[in-house]
C-alpha cells in the first residue's frame, strides 16, 4: 500500500512541483494518474519508490516512510518504468538489459535465465534477445524497459506513460497484461495522457493540475466530466464526445465503452423512440 500525506515537493530551482498531495493506493488497485504537462504527475510517482523524497509531508510504502529506507530496498517491491526508455537502458543486448536487475537482486543464474525468457515472450521481444536495445524502434525500446522491470516481479508497478509509441495491438496486450497482474493481486499505477487507453481499461482515475489533485473517481465518471478534463488539458474519449453531442436527443452523456454505445444506439433505433 502507498500512502501519500500532504506531500509538497520543490525542485532545486525552487519550482514547487507538488503543493500538498494526499492519496492512498490500496494493494491490488489499478490507478491512472492523468493531467496536463507539468501538472506534477511524474514528480509525484517518483515518490513511490523513493527516487524523490518529499520536501514536507510523508510517503509510506507498506507502512515504511520512504525517507527512512533506500531506493534499492524499495525497488524490490516497487518497480518503476520511466517515460523515456533511453533514460533506463544501457546494456549491449536486450537479454543483458533484462538480466541486470535480476542479478542485482541476487537471483540464481538458472532463475535469471527463466525469467528473462519469460519476460521476452510476454512482451513479444524474443526475436531481439541478442540485439542491442539501441537498434530497436522507440516502441520496442519502451517494451524492453518494461520487460526489465517485470522480470523481477515487483509487488507494485509504476508505469510512466506506458502507451507512448505503442501500436494498437501492443496497447491491447498491455491492457490484458495489466488485468493479469490485477488477478495476481498486484498494484498498478499508470501515469498517462492516453484517454482512449484509460477508457478501455477503466481504472480508478486521479486528475492532477498544477501540483494538486483536482478530481478522482471511477473512469466512467471522470472521463465524462468535461469541466474537470478541460482543466487538466485532457480531451473526452471519442465515444464520450459522440454521446455529449447526442445528449440533445436524450441519450446519456456518461458512455465511454464502445459496446455499451452500440447497444444504446441500436436499442433507440429498434424501439423507434429516443431514450
Amino acid at each position, binding site marked *: 500500500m502507498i500512502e501519500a500525506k500532504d506531500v509538497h515537493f520543490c525542485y532545486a530551482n525552487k519550482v514547487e512541483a507538488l503543493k500538498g498531495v494526499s492519496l492512498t493506493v490500496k494493494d491490488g488497485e489499478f490507478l491512472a494518474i492523468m493531467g496536463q504537462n507539468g501538472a506534477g504527475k511524474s514528480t509525484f510517482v517518483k515518490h513511490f519508490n523513493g527516487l524523490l523524497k518529499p520536501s514536507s509531508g510523508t510517503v509510506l510504502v507498506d507502512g515504511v516512510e520512504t525517507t527512512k529506507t533506500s531506493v534499492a530496498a524499495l525497488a524490490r517491491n516497487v518497480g518503476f518504468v520511466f517515460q523515456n526508455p533511453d533514460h533506463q537502458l544501457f546494456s549491449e543486448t536486450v537479454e543483458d538489459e533484462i538480466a541486470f536487475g535480476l542479478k542485482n537482486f541476487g537471483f540464481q543464474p538458472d532463475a535469471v535465465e527463466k525469467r528473462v525468457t519469460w519476460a521476452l515472450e510476454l512482451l513479444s521481444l524474443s526475436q531481439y534477445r541478442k540485439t542491442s536495445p539501441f537498434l530497436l524502434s522507440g516502441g520496442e525500446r519502451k517494451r524492453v524497459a518494461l520487460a526489465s522491470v517485470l522480470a523481477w516481479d515487483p509487488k507494485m508497478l509504476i508505469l510512466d506513460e506506458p502507451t507512448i509509441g505503442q501500436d494498437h495491438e501492443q496497447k491491447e496486450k498491455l491492457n490484458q497484461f495489466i488485468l493479469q497482474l490485477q488477478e495476481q493481486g498486484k498494484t498498478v499505477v499508470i501515469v498517462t495522457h492516453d484517454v482512449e487507453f484509460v477508457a478501455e481499461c477503466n481504472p480508478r482515475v486521479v486528475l492532477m493540475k498544477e501540483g494538486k489533485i483536482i478530481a478522482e473517481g471511477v473512469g466512467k465518471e471522470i472521463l465524462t466530466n468535461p469541466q474537470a478534463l478541460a482543466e487538466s488539458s485532457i480531451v473526452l474519449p471519442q*465515444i464520450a464526445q459522440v454521446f455529449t453531442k447526442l445528449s440533445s436527443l436524450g441519450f446519456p452523456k456518461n458512455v465511454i465503452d464502445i459496446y455499451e454505445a452500440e447497444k444504446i444506439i441500436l436499442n433507440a433505433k429498434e424501439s423507434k423512440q429516443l431514450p
Partner: protein
Amino acid sequence: MAIIETKNLTYTYPAAAKPSILDVSIKVEKGEFVLITGPSGCGKTTLCRCFNGLIPHFYQGDLKGEITVAGEDVLKRHTYEMARHVGLVFQNPENQLFALSVEKDVAFGLENFGVPREEIRKEVDWALNQTGIYDLRERSPHEISGGQQQRVAIAAVLAMEPEIIVLDEPTSFLDPLSAQKIFDVIYDLNRKQGITVILVEHRLDLTAKYTNHLVVMDEGKVRFEGNPREILSTEETRLMGVGIPKATLLYLMLKRDGFGVGGNTPLSSEELADQLLEAFGAK
C-alpha cells in the same frame, strides 16, 4: 509533379540482418497531409529518415531504389541541402535539441541559412508563439519537460518554413489538448500555405481527421495506401492491428449489425455525431 516519390526503396541498416524498409513505392503530391501508420517496428521512422537524406548519408547502410524529394535526387544531395526543403521533427526530441536556450535552438537553422537578423527574430517569435512556448525562450532545452521539448523541436522546424514537414510521433509526450493544438497549427499551415505534411502516428483517434492520404505499413512494406475513409473501413486494416478511431469503429459496428447510419465513413467524433443526429431525424 509529385513532391515526393520513391520507387522500390529498400534500406538495410549497417550490420542489420534484414531490410527495415522493403520495396517502398509511394507518391506524395504537393499540399497533401499524409498520415503514415502501422505496428511499431514496421519501418515508419526509417522511411522518414530517407526523406531528408539522413538515410543513407548519416546512417550509411545499404539503400536501393530511387527517391526524389522536391525535385532533388536524395542520393546525390547532402542532408544540409535537403534541409532547405524538408524539416524533420524526430521521435525523441532530446536527439535534436542542443543549444543553450530554447530561442537559440529555434533560431539555429535560420542562422545557418544566413537569414538576416531581423527576419530571424520575427520567424522565431512566430514559431515560439504558434507552439505556445514563448515564455520558455530563455530556458535551457535540457531543463524542460519532454512535452515542452517536443514543442521546441516543432518550433525549430516551423521557423524554417520548409516546403515539406516530416513529423515522427511529434506529440507523444504532450497532453491531448496540447497535442490537438499543435496538430491544428500544422493543419492550418497545410491548408493556408500548402505546406506538404508527412505525419507518423499511432493515435489515429487524434489525427485521422486531418489526412487525405493514408499509408499503412507493416514489416517494412506499404500494405495500404490511399483514401483514409476506405482503408480504415476494411476488415484487413483492423486485423493488422491499426488503431481505428473509436468513432469510425462504432460506425462500422452499427453498419455490420444492421444500422446503416448513412454518409461516408466518419474519421472523427464530430462527423459521427452529426451523422447520428441526422439518422435520428434531429437535423
